[in-house]
């Protein structure tokens, strides 16, 4: 069995993701979070199982659905929540928002609202580690839909040709907006692309953080030892709509399918394992939930109290050498 602290920490981070997303949806409906938001609800095991296999100095890149990834990597929720709420205390000073979270202090190199576009960036982080002679690795999260993008193909081939320490972590949640993976990918599992790049590819239960952790760890250890990149696919499911705020005018999937996956909620799955293995009691498990909820409310209150960035702040952070270069006119 794995280290108890690690197993408990996984549960805590999954709970953080769940709570941040649940509250974010509410705050979005209340008008305290602007724009549309994509949440990771139901996919927490993939986020946390994967990041648990990484060291603090390893890198990740995210997607449009990435509230959970920096949390998995260890980013405090205050800065993330403040960012969603468009505050100057946000991790990106309010410039990024839901689709562009990043926390460089924990190796989170940022989300990408452009599907697939963050994957080559992760390959670059892996390249950088190799050139600098560190043993860091880089992990790129991407979705089943993103696997159809040319950028993902180019990134995989490049990482394989150069034997880079990169993990391609596919969260296959079976849908890309309203398109089933069967309708957008020629193969049902994205790990089947591995052999085309002479790269190991494995698919695991993505609703339990432990198998995701184990598969990722194997890939990470291989990468760190110079064994090159891998595809790790977490088979999971998007139980919510694609994005809150996006109108969907037609049914496109069966309620039974959703229900089936709801019955295997990753937080329940891992919670039950923790209790069964005697790692936590039911009471301790509930206490963990309480702690996370308190932490989240504190983050929301702090964000509410924080300042809105003024219009003039929009004119900062374009170039690294400003204000010397006043390019914007």
């Amino acid at each position: 069995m794995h280290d108890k602290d690690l197993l408990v920490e996984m549960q805590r981070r999954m709970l953080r993701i769940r709570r941040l997303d649940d509250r974010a949806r509410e705050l979005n409906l209340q008008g305290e979070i602007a724009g549309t938001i994509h949440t990771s609800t139901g996919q927490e095991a993939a986020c946390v199982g994967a990041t648990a296999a990484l060291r603090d100095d390893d890198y990740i890149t995210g997607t449009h659905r990435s509230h959970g990834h920096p949390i998995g990597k260890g980013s405090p929720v205050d800065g993330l929540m403040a960012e969603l709420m468009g505050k100057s205390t946000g991790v990106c000073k309010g410039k990024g928002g839901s689709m562009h979270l990043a926390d460089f202090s924990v190796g989170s190199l940022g989300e990408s609202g452009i599907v697939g576009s963050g994957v080559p960036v992760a390959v670059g982080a892996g390249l950088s580690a190799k050139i600098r002679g560190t043993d860091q690795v880089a992990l790129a999260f991407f979705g089943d839909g993103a696997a159809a993008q040319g950028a993902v193909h180019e990134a995989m081939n490049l990482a394989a040709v150069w034997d880079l320490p990169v993990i391609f972590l596919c969260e296959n949640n079976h849908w890309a907006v309203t398109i089933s993976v069967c309708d957008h990918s020629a193969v049902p599992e994205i790990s089947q692309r591995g052999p085309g790049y002479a790269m190991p590819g494995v698919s695991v239960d993505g609703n339990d953080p432990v198998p995701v952790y184990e598969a990722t760890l194997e890939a990470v250890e291989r990468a760190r030892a110079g064994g090159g990149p891998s595809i790790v696919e977490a088979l999971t499911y998007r139980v919510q709509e694609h994005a809150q705020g996006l109108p969907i005018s037609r049914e496109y999937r069966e309620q039974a399918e959703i229900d089936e996956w709801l019955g295997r909620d990753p937080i329940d799955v891992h919670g039950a394992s923790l209790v069964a293995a005697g790692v936590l009691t039911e009471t301790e498990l509930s206490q963990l939930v309480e702690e996370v909820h308190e932490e989240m409310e504190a983050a929301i209150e702090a964000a509410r109290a924080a300042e809105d960035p003024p219009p003039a702040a929009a004119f900062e952070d374009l170039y690294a050498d400003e204000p010397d270069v006043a390019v914007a006119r």
Partner: protein
Amino acid sequence: MTAATDTAVETKRLNYLAAIREAQIEEMERDESVILLGEDCEVGVFGTTDKLDEQFGTNRVRTTPVSENGFAGAGIGAAMTGLRPIIDLTIAAFVYVSMDQLVSQAAKNRYMFGGQARIPIVFRAAMLYGGNAGAHHSDRPYPLFMNTPGLKVAVPASPADAKGLLKTAVRDDNPIMFFEDQTLWSQREEVPTSSEFLIPFGQAAVKREGSDVTLVAIAGSVPRALKAAKLLERDGISVEVIDPRTLVPLDWDTILASVEKTGRLVVADPAHLSCSAASEILATVAERAFSSLRVPPLRVTTPDMNVPFAPSMLVGFYPDPDRIAAGVRKVVDHG
């Protein structure tokens, strides 16, 4: 003026998206070589394409993988072999992903092949800059395509124009970039019901006549320019508002004639400042109507700055009625 204001024409009240939907349906009914490709197009997240597969079949209405470059290219190949595809690129930021097919194939093939290729294809792209989507989903990239010979570029600013221009675009034998401004989606107006309601490319709409200043407004800036013109009217400033409607080809005659009349030019353009459509209009007017210009022309655009997420930073970021009115005042005050 759009035909929508002609009282003899039968009309119905539609919003911008419904007008686009109607244009597509009419053209698909008229010509079975018209097909529709795009992500989620059967479910249709913005409402312009959903359920069209029920009417036209899944052979002609196809939901694509998330491969904009791939399906843009597939559309081009289909156009070169007898079909008339409408490609829904959904959001305008995805033109970068598909840039190679748009520029290297759609814009160049006919010319390179000495006229052998006919490439009747429409690329639809929604400019979502109104909301709070952040820098990855707030692009207004039409100036890039004005610098790319071989494409035509439409920027409809009203439901009727959206319908009439899209229908013309589908019947055009050339590749067309069709930019739909999200800030206009909820606009409603009377739209001609005729299935032969076509608005020609290269014909500007004089949205309001005036004598003191020519205010050229592009895409979502059009209603904002009209609001600014109303504000200014109270101060006795008479503003002529012109919507070019298409940027390639661009109706220079109408703009130049107006500047000759007013002697003053302001351009409101939601694109970034440098090398914008506004820049092009100022440059061309400076070249061709210099002697008519009594005072310096002026651009009111989005700054050369990425788009921030937080609502508080977006105040005054895009050309709004206040900024446009201030620009016009500055020009008028100048003399």
